[in-house]
């Protein structure tokens, strides 16, 4: 009952092809790796570009691997929820629509341009003002800026770190779930020698 101690060459994509991974886990992760989102379904082009620009600042990806804005758009289009919502915020879709408007309004007041037209440093200034809870702009008079930002940030972070490539990047190997783990203590390593592919036959 021993799992692998590290990713095989080829990383999580290669790991998913081994017997270390159970079928339900392989299906879930492979589907996420393969997922591509088409044109946005809930946002118009302008709003979606703003959302994408915000996500790029919240989770900067040197080589874009995870389409956070696309996944968020998909969730809203499917009407999926996470089980609760701050009572002081409107529905998720409405909150995003209002907040994206608010972001452009704040960007215009602070820098005289739409959010997407700003350099990264100015975009960060806008986002920091929203996170701090009192950004300039009429949209935020009825939409609690701090909570709006918190909800968007949490969802972006959860989408990003649910992606197998992000999990590989932080050394999370839990998807190698077929055999279980024996070396669970501090600094312990799974003792089983790895094969070249990392997929040991005992898995």
């Amino acid at each position, binding site marked *: 009952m021993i799992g692998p101690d590290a990713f095989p060459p080829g990383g999580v994509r290669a790991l998913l092809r081994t017997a270390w991974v159970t079928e339900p886990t392989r299906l879930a992760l492979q589907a996420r790796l393969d997922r591509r989102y088409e044109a946005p379904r809930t946002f118009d082009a302008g709003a979606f570009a703003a959302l994408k620009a915000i996500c790029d600042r919240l989770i900067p990806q040197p080589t874009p691997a995870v389409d956070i804005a696309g996944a968020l758009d998909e969730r809203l289009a499917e009407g999926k929820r996470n089980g609760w919502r701050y*009572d002081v915020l409107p529905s998720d879709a409405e909150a995003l629509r209002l907040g994206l408007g608010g972001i452009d309004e704040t960007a215009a007041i602070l820098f005289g341009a739409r959010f997407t037209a700003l350099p990264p440093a100015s975009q960060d200034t806008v986002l920091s003002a929203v996170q701090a809870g009192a950004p300039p702009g009429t949209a935020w008079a009825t939409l609690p800026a701090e909570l709006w930002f918190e909800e968007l940030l949490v969802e972006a972070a959860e989408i990003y770190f649910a992606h197998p490539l992000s999990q590989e990047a932080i050394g999370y190997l839990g998807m190698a779930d077929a055999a279980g783990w024996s070396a669970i203590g501090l600094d312990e390593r799974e003792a089983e020698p790895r094969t070249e592919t990392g997929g040991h036959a005992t898995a």
Partner: protein
Amino acid sequence: MRRHEPSDIVDAVVIGTGAGGAPIMARLAEAGLSVVALECGRAWDPARDFATDEEAQGKLYWMDERLSAGADPLRFGANNSGIGVGGSTLHYTAYFPRAQADDFRLKSDFGVGADWPVPYAEIEPYYDELEAFLGLSGPQNYPWGAARSYPLPPLPLNGAAQLMQGACARLGIRTSAAPNAAASRPFFQKGYGLRAACSNRGYCQAGCSTGAKASMDVTFIPLALSLGAELRAESFVTRIETNAEGRASGVVYTQNSVERRQRCRAVFLCAGSIETPRLLLLNGLANSSGQVGRNLMAHPGQQVWGRFEQMVRPWKGIPGGLISEDTHRPADADFASGYLLQSIGVMPVTYAGEVARGRGLWGQALLDHMARYNHIAGINILGDCLPSPDNYLELSDELDERGLPKPRIHFSAGENERRMTAHADRLMREIWMEAGARDIWSFARFAHVIGTCRMGERADGAVVNPEGESFDVPGLFIADNSTFPSALGANPSLTIMAFSLRTADRFLNRTRRGET
């Protein structure tokens, strides 16, 4: 599985198949009663259906939207909710401490909260029975409360548990391997078969795929079915019916978009502390006291995280390996009651969400923090909570996809919870500093929603009597965490099950005596 016709008058309909409903199903079926259980969620085959993936396992949470209000809005979904055959036990941590005797007399000892209308001594035999039946893993000599040992050896300690154990020993805080309902050895489960030994996959909170964890779908439910109970999954109850005498006489539910009715002699409502009061409020039932939805409590669940030099890999092993109840009644407390301490592991998506929400980290700072994920370990508390008139559940004007009003849940921590949390936060930071942690930070949270259909002696102040039966509607019993008069400084599942078995036994005694 025995099947009943809707036109049959069955002895009992059980609504919900979690820690409240499942034990009742088995107990009543064992006594030869005809039992139909209605579960709004699906039946899962864990080996085939459960991925080791947090997002995919979102299917185990109650995702219909709840509105969270108050100064400390409760987060539902991935915590504080559950759906499916087995209810929230499908994703409970299976951390299994007993309530202690003084948890039942908060009012007597501190002058706040409420005493339980049932003597603790009456519950202890049920704790014994449940620990044996579920095959609990734990120490031979548990240091707190009644002397006891657990049937299976303790589960191994993971990195977070080792760090907490070492630091607590140096600080003079007693710790123990935690009582846990995951089997440390293969365990024969009556009515189910062999439950595998825990493989340390660490996924208790998102569904155990091996049967090691004693969720209801591998324990009480298969036992109940083997004894003749009938289970109807994907059946959402919308109405409890009463007859001319005002007794509970049937249940109306929707299955496959068709409205159905099951007639019965008694109803056991076990839908949890949100859906149980919600159904009663929707039906305008059992609320002459005005207490349905009131007395809502939630355990202070403050977490303290730290980064360690050592490789922790917080995704390995049961999340809560170690326990301390030395803080059950702290000598230097400036608050009533107390809390327990536990070591905690965490899965990556959950942790990323907490870092984002709790610290507000984004951009490169968030990525840099997460790059050290394998070096993160945590401690958290489970603390008692006092009822407050400010904390309650109501129906909102907003409708959900089923066309029913969404519940709005008001929660604000009171002075007692704030003081307890501050005390615990200081102590946990001290432990983590002693353990060598860097970048220590706290995440504020509340876990387990409790109360909302209080059990009590008097019809004007409680929803159900000490038997669990509605004061207003004879034949309607409630058995879940909604009936708890106080929150307890212990994880609720074991006590929920104990009261469910007791309610079933009291009902059976009455039935045998020929009473209604």
